[in-house]
Structures are given as structure tokens and as C-alpha cells.
């Protein structure tokens, strides 16, 4: 899976090195070539110097609708430009942008851009968007019976009533605002849901068999 990272700062270089070490195809873009020093000597991915929302540069970076784009420069504005160009012009679905201003982050979420704030664990959050590993859980109780798993609602699942989801959806985060999961609520594309359940529950949600009416 091809990933294009814009911004070779702390988060960008960390994500780039992790993906590269896992054997994924990575291109990292920055305006200043000195920034690439953060990648170290073992980095086997590609580096490109230039402006991340430039269409020609993104094309040169191998952008396609199937890849992932991570916008983690120091500037919120650059990041949202990169994110929208990737999503709207190139049809990329897996786009995540680092936006520090929570008010603007809410607005950008309405545009379908997943946002991450600049916090210490930002690179982990970003990795979750780029490689949504099925089966990951965020929390487990001490007996490891119940787990809390975060998942994004796909377009296919949009319109499903929470009570038909077949799992306990404790929390729905929509456009940056958290709502307690009520049974009659309809799930929407890009909702971030927190599922509380056993490992079997979560697995059945992940493979689609928990949904009422699923074949």
C-alpha cells in the first residue's frame, strides 16, 4: 500500500520510518530537503522536495485513489489544502490531516477529512488511519473479557440503526462531537464509533456478520 506523507517533521518522519520498516511503499514530501535528515540512513522510501498540494508533485509521488495521504506539516492551512486536493481531486479515501485548531478541525471533518491534533501520540493515531488493522482494540478490562474498539463507519454501513449493528456502540464521534450511542440513531459515513464487546463481538462487526440483515 502506497503512502504519501507531506511534512517531514517529528510525526511525518516517524510515520515514514515505521511504514518503510514494515515494507510499505512510502514517499515523503517536504519543502526543505534538510528535513529529510530525520529519516536516517536506513530509509528506503522516496523523498520529494516541493509543495505538498501541488498537483504535479503529487502525481510524481504516485498518488492514486487507492493510496493513503498523510498531511502533517507544521501548518494547519497547508495540511487542509493537501487533504482536500488528495481527496477531491485525486479521489483518495484514506486521508488524514493534522489540524491543531479544534474549531477548524470540526469544520474540516464535515468535508470528509479525518483530522488529528498535534499531541504526543499523534504518530500512533496517524498510523491507525493509514493502516486500519482489523482486530486492534483500544482498551481491555483486566480479565480481557471486554474490549473497547474504535472503528470508522464505511459508506456501506451508513444508514444502519445502532440497534441493528449487532454490537454495543457506546459512543459515536461525529464531526468532532461525541454522542452517547442511542439505539435509534443512524450511523453515518466517517463516524468514529467506540464498540464495547467481547473479542467475538468485535470480530463479527469487523467481518460484517454482526449487522442485522447481513448475509
Amino acid at each position, binding site marked *: 500500500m502506497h503512502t504519501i506523507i507531506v511534512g517531514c517533521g517529528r510525526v511525518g518522519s516517524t510515520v515514514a520510518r515505521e511504514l518503510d520498516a514494515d515494507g510499505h511503499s512510502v514517499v515523503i514530501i517536504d519543502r526543505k530537503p534538510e528535513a529529510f535528515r530525520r529519516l536516517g540512513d536506513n530509509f528506503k522510501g522516496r523523498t520529494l522536495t516541493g509543495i505538498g498540494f501541488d498537483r504535479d508533485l503529487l502525481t510524481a509521488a504516485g498518488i492514486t485513489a487507492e493510496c493513503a495521504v498523510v498531511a502533517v506539516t507544521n501548518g*494547519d*492551512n497547508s495540511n487542509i489544502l493537501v487533504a482536500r486536493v488528495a481527496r477531491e481531486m485525486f479521489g483518495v479515501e484514506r486521508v488524514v490531516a493534522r489540524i491543531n*485548531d479544534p474549531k477548524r478541525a470540526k469544520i474540516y471533518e464535515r468535508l470528509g477529512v479525518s483530522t488529528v491534533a498535534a499531541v504526543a501520540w499523534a504518530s500512533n493515531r496517524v498510523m491507525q488511519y493509514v493502516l486500519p488493522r482489523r482486530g486492534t482494540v483500544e482498551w481491555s478490562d483486566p480479565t480481557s473479557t471486554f474490549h473497547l474498539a474504535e472503528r470508522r463507519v464505511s459508506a456501506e454501513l451508513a444508514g444502519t440503526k445502532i440497534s441493528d449493528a449487532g454490537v454495543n456502540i457506546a459512543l459515536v464521534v461525529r464531526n468532532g462531537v461525541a454522542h452517547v450511542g442511542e439505539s435509534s440513531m443512524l450511523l453515518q459515513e466517517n463516524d468514529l464509533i467506540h464498540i464495547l464487546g467481547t473479542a467475538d463481538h468485535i470480530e463479527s462487526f469487523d467481518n460484517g456478520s454482526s449487522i442485522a440483515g447481513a448475509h
Partner: protein
Amino acid sequence: MKIVIAGAGSVGRYMAKQLAASGHTIVIIDNDASAVFRLQSTDSITSFQGDACEVDVLAASGAAEADVVAAVTGDDEDNLVISLLSKQEFGVPRVVARVNNPNNEWMYNEMWGVDVSVSTPHLLTGLVEEAVTEGSLVRLMAFDHGKSGLNEVTLADGSPAINQTIGSLQLPREATVVAVLRDGHVVAPALDTVLHAHDEVMVLSSGDCEAAIRAALIGSK
């Protein structure tokens, strides 16, 4: 009219003074205190220090009541975000934005809430072309969200329009000859006006009819 100007550089400050002199009420915003307070506060001009890309700053500067927001900072990213927020969050009827780098001009449209974009390099190029180019179509200005434009063709010697009347030109319905410049005079166009070589024909068009205008005034290559 109430106008909010984002960017108190030389362009923003000039605009503020001119527009205030025309009787409009101006609020000018810049993150740099020294830039924004270089402008004398008057009854018509209020200076505001803050980042115009922030929703709260736009709200405090009166964007919700503004008739126009002009995003004229020296930074295209800022101008696009200011335009988007102005249009989407405050419903500003007219958003004007400055293009700094022509490579970014393609984003300055309704996708980012921009109603009118102005690119100085683009304007300059158009005007240079208009002065030196004969036998080509020059796009001088775009209006109406880019849907309409003012085009200019100086008739070269081989033009099919020479010795034709304006009425007989095969121009589409969406294009109108609005003026003919001849030897330094403006000739008001009538259907029976005969065109001469080296006439500068100004055509106002809406929609995409460049090809038809070229065919009528320049001919096939």
C-alpha cells in the same frame, strides 16, 4: 457596504483607504500588530490584530454582517482558508481573494468559497499579450465566478473577419462584440460595422465559446 479585509500589507492597506474614501465601512485584520496599526483608525476603518484563518477572529471582525470579505494576504494557503470559512461559516455574499502564486490559481473557485480571484501576474500577462499579440485570442478578465469573460482579438491580415460586418460574424449567442478599438478610437459596434485589419475586437462571452470566437475572428490554422 461592510467590507472585511484580511491582510494589512501594502495591498490590504491601500484597499482599506480607497474603499473607506468611497464611503464603505472597513475592518482590516492582520496577525502582525505593526502592520495592522500602521493604518490610521478612522470612523470608517477599524484595525484588528488576529489570525483571520480562525473562526473566532472572523466572527469578531464582523464577518457575519460583512457584504464582502477580501482575502489579500501574501499567502495563498491563508487566503483560501479565509475564503472557505467566510463563505461556509458566515455566508458572506461576495468573497474576493488574491492569488500570489499562479500555480495555485486553479484552487481559487467555489471549492474554496472564492467568488472572484485576482492574480496580478495573470492580469499583467494578459495586458502584455493584448498589447503585443495580433491574431490570437487574449482573455483579459473573468467575471461572474469565471463563467463570463472579456476577450480580445487583434485582427491579423489573414483574418476571416476582415471586410465582414459584425452582424455577419458566425458568433454564438453567448458572445457579443462590445467594442472595436481602431486607431486609438472606440467604435461602438453595430450590426453593419465593417471590420478592418488590425482592429482590436473586444468580445464579452459567457460559457465556453472560445473555439467559436477563434474561428470567427482568427480562422483555422
